[in-house]
């Protein structure tokens, strides 16, 4: 290569770069750069027209400065000018600058596109390539609009030079990726596919990337590429190492193209044509055979290129998943790599085997390598390789080896890198549950997990063990015994205390016969951990204590004493204080029967998909948990189940689908003037039909508990209401605004029949006389029989609880959503007040977007509770809201959603 070509005379640039390199400090560098920027700016602004060379030099300097990490906000125009230079290097630098520093300035884009257009039509291949490179580098929508129709023509034209074809193919690929709607292949499809047959290997190499991408998106239109790809591959694979001249890389014929061809074939199922398929299988066998041949060179490049093809072939074999013979051979080959001295190969073999483990044909073959993989987990020095080994163990786990694998993973966990501990914990927890034959093993495993890596045991994991213990009575005694023993360790993890507290509180009676774990011993053991624990754990322990009082009446005095002491009953934490006070009171006043009912053993949890699995999927992204996971899930049927929450309050009973239609007319008073006083007949007349207006007023009270229900010149009706669980009391105030006495004042509460079905309303009659200017009061007692929005009880919950419950309520009819224009102020405080007024708990820090509101509440009725979750997403810019409700009872979501939509 001619040495003259270097530097090409831009001395000024070289000097500037030297200066920068000689700068002793960051400050000096910035100073030098600022000086240069000032210089360039003055040159560009100066009235003396710069020649092309200077322009090129300065643009190049700007580029250098930009690549050092500084911002450049000028010079674009000069760079654009360079594009139309007829000197190649000037044009080239201009294009480079544009490619690196493109500006969305539309004026500039127009100029750039003009220059590109000129170069594309110049028929000078070097210029055409420059222009195509620029389009591919920028790849903006504007460029796609301008050139997407032109480039396919260049690509397939008979007289286009090979080098231009290569650039055109990849340029089109880039445009297709950014703006697929603008790249219409249509008539070109077949000619593009036939580029696979092109004599020039470079053209095939470039075109195949385009074809692969197009095939992924439109497999049917491009399916003719399969047979072409197979024959091309076959020719390469069977060629001697020197046949392909410059396309042979370290004695490997066309490794890049081979990999690309194998990749393209992975867009399709196995070829249907027997001959094509036979040829392909032959190719794959040849590739596998070659792996066994002695290397033609000792260079790592040779083995890398060869193995790159091999791994891609194995991917294709796994993709087809239909040739048992090939799958087993692939597995054996990877088995050899597991012990290879090259770390890279061991890494890739572990990774590739993970996918093989999910094929029924090769699962057993993969399992034979278990010892090697366990060894890798123990001895590999690179954490990323150990991670692969752990993934593979997870993938190859089944009933036959679960105990061994779980044990190995547990022992690895003791020394595992912090970065992968949480994931390991999840995996162990999932395997332990999935392959548990006897649940005592499962309990042991999880408790070990907490002991070894307690900090990494997430809520999902320990919730899960509790759910399983509660749902399976054959393991409860064992669990109680084991946690009791585990808690005896001098230092045990808080998660252990939580599990211990919960399980002993439920099943401590099962081991109470043994004097070594008598009720008092159990209590003292738990209570010895109490003071070291965080508030949520202490709260849990307090609940365990009250359960103890029920289980073991003999502990009552001791526990009451604990509850009564100042550190509990006057605890500064409201939750703890409340529990202490309530539990103390409950234990003192409730009869044993009542206590036994209230503190009954937890009912079994509903069976659901494991939330741990969901967490792992989320953590690793959908692809990473591998196919095994999903397939196993299918295979194992409903064995994985249960979610993390334990709250009894979401356990909603199936409900008769009562309709809430009546709620609208539940405007409690439809004043119906009646009686003798003819004057009064007209009281409402000027307000028009009374019902609609009150109805409008009524909506105000969805989020408010008092205010004016109706008002005209004569009469004002005010309302005040209070609700507790399913009972409500409503006060109606009738104010006489005139100075005359209202005689025979009568009212009756009118509501539609179906409202009555849901509300049991008792009204007290009042005096039929209202003095002028006076106000009388009427009380209505209401009992909610079915759902009614005002009987909301707030439910506080943490973020993950919320989302868990949210997910549980995922049936379509449980959700209602409405997008609507804001009717009222979108002020945050106003919205908050409204949501609180509704009676729900407003949950902070739950929604990742702080603008949004999420609320939770339970509607209490006589017969049931309906859990409601609400999410309100304001969009201040558009003055719109999106309101989503999920309730445990179908009809409630819809009705509430409609009702609330008018409130905001």
């Amino acid at each position: 290569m001619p040495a003259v070509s270097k530097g090409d005379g831009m001395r000024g640039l070289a000097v500037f770069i030297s200066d920068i390199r000689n700068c002793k400090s960051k400050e000096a560098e910035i100073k030098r750069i600022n000086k240069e920027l000032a210089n360039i700016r003055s040159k560009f602004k100066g009235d003396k027209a710069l020649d092309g060379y200077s322009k090129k030099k300065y643009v190049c300097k700007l580029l250098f400065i930009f690549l050092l990490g500084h911002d450049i906000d000028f010079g674009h125009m000069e760079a654009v000018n360079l594009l139309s230079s007829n000197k190649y290097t000037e044009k080239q630098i201009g294009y480079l600058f544009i490619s690196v520093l493109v500006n969305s300035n539309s004026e500039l884009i127009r100029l750039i596109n003009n220059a590109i257009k000129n170069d594309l039509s110049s028929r000078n291949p070097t210029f055409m390539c420059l222009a195509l490179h620029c389009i591919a580098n920028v790849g903006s929508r504007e460029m796609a609009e301008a050139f997407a129709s032109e480039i396919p023509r260049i690509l397939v034209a008979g007289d286009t030079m090979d080098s231009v074809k290569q650039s055109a193919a990849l340029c089109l690929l880039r445009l297709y990726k950014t703006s697929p709607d603008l790249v219409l292949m249509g008539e070109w499809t077949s000619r593009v596919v036939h580029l696979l047959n092109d004599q020039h290997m470079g053209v095939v190499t470039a075109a195949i990337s385009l074809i692969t991408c197009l095939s992924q998106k439109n497999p049917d239109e491009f399916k003719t590429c399969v047979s072409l790809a197979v024959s091309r591959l076959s020719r390469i694979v069977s060629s001697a190492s020197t046949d392909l001249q410059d396309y042979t890389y370290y004695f490997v014929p066309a490794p890049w193209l081979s990999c690309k061809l194998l990749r393209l074939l992975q867009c399709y199922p196995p070829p249907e044509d027997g001959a094509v398929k036979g040829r392909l299988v032959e190719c794959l066998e040849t590739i596998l055979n070659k792996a066994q041949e002695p290397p033609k060179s000792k260079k790592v490049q040779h083995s890398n290129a060869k193995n790159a093809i091999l791994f891609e072939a194995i991917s294709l074999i796994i993709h087809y998943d239909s040739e048992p013979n090939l799958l087993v051979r692939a597995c054996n080959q990877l088995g050899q790599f597991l012990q290879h001295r090259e770390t890279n190969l061991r890494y890739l073999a572990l990774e590739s085997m993970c996918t093989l483990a999910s094929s029924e044909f090769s699962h057993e073959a993969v399992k034979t390598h278990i010892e090697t993989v366990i060894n890798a987990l123990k001895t590999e020095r690179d954490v990323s390789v150990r991670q692969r080994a752990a993934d593979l163990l997870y993938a190859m786990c089944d009933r036959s080896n679960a105990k061994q694998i779980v044990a190995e993973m547990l022992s690895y966990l003791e020394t595992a890198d912090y970065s992968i501990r949480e994931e390991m914990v999840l995996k162990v927890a999932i395997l332990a549950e999935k392959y548990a034959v006897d649940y005592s093993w499962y309990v042991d495993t999880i408790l070990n997990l907490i002991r070894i890596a307690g900090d990494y045991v997430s809520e999902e994991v320990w919730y899960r063990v509790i759910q399983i213990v509660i749902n399976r009575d054959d393991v409860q005694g064992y669990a109680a015994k084991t946690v009791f023993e585990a808690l005896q360790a001098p230092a045990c993890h808080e998660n252990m205390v939580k599990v211990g507290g919960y399980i002993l509180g439920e099943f401590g009676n099962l081991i109470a016969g043994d004097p070594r774990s008598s009720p008092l011993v159990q209590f003292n053991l738990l209570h010895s951990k109490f003071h070291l624990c965080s508030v949520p754990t202490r709260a849990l322990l307090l609940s365990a204590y009250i359960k103890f009082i029920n289980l073991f009446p003999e502990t009552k005095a001791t526990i009451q004493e604990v509850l009564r002491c100042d550190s509990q009953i006057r605890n500064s934490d409201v939750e703890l204080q409340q529990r202490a006070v309530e539990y103390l009171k409950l234990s003192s006043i409730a009869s044993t029967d009542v206590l036994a009912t209230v503190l009954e053993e937890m009912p079994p949890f509903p069976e659901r998909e494991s939330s741990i699995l969901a967490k792992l999927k989320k953590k690793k992204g959908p692809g990473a948990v591998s196919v095994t996971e999903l397939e196993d899930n299918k295979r194992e049927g409903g064995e994985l189940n249960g979610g993390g929450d334990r709250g009894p309050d979401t356990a909603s009973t199936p409900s008769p689908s009562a309709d809430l239609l009546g709620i609208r007319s539940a405007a409690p008073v439809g004043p119906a003037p009646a009686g003798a006083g003819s004057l009064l007949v007209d009281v409402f007349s000027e307000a028009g039909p009374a019902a609609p207006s009150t109805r409008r007023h009524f909506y105000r009270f969805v989020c408010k508990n008092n205010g004016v229900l109706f008002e005209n010149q004569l009469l004002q009706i005010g309302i005040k209401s209070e609700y507790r669980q399913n009972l409500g009391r409503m006060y109606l105030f009738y104010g006489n605004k005139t100075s005359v006495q209202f005689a025979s004042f009568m009212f009756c509460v009118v509501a539609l029949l179906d409202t009555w079905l849901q509300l049991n309303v008792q009204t007290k009659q009042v005096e039929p006389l209202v003095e002028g200017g006076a106000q009388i009061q009427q009380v209505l007692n209401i009992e909610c029989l079915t759902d009614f929005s005002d009987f909301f009880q707030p439910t506080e919950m943490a973020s993950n609880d919320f989302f868990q419950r949210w997910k549980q309520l995922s049936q379509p009819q449980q959700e209602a959503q409405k997008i609507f224009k804001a009717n009222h102020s979108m002020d945050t405080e106003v919205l908050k007040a409204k949501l609180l007024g509704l009676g729900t708990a407003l949950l902070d820090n739950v929604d990742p977007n702080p603008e949004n509101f999420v609320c939770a509440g339970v509607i209490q009725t006589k017969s049931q509770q309906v859990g409601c979750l609400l999410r309100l997403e304001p969009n201040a810019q558009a003055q719109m809201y999106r309101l989503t409700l999920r309730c445990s009872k179908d009809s409630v979501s819809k009705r509430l959603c409609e009702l609330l939509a008018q409130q905001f």
Partner: protein
Amino acid sequence: MMRFMLLFSRQGKLRLQKWYTATAERDKKKMVRELMQIVLARKPKMCSFLEWRDLKIVYKRYASLYFCCAIEEQDNELITLEVIHRFVELLDKYFGSVCELDIIFNFEKAYFILDEFLMGGEIQDTSKKSVLKAIEQSDLLQEDCKESHTKIFAL
């Protein structure tokens, strides 16, 4: 498809960066910083592949320079390693036993060579001859221009 390629020195100086998808400057800087930190902390015998965000990182060290590529989930790690090697060979052939300084002082040439080799994150041509011929041709064009330049002044 390759998402980006970075060349940086042992000291953590970025020498060349090529992005094949539109990325905001701020994100680029953050990603470069993060990756340099990870790669520079790795020991010599470690594996050349890493999982990073949703990408796979393939890197290799040549003398004082690290060549680091980010590829997508379905891409082939080993062949990417050889993409790096072929690029090094091209630089080496062009500059004549290339060193870090060549790339610093002729950064624009390094970009041109890379552009001839990779385009839009895919291989354009794997033949050393073809790539270098393209660069050679442009260098010749430049010579022509120079001559005409002098001639004009001679007039």
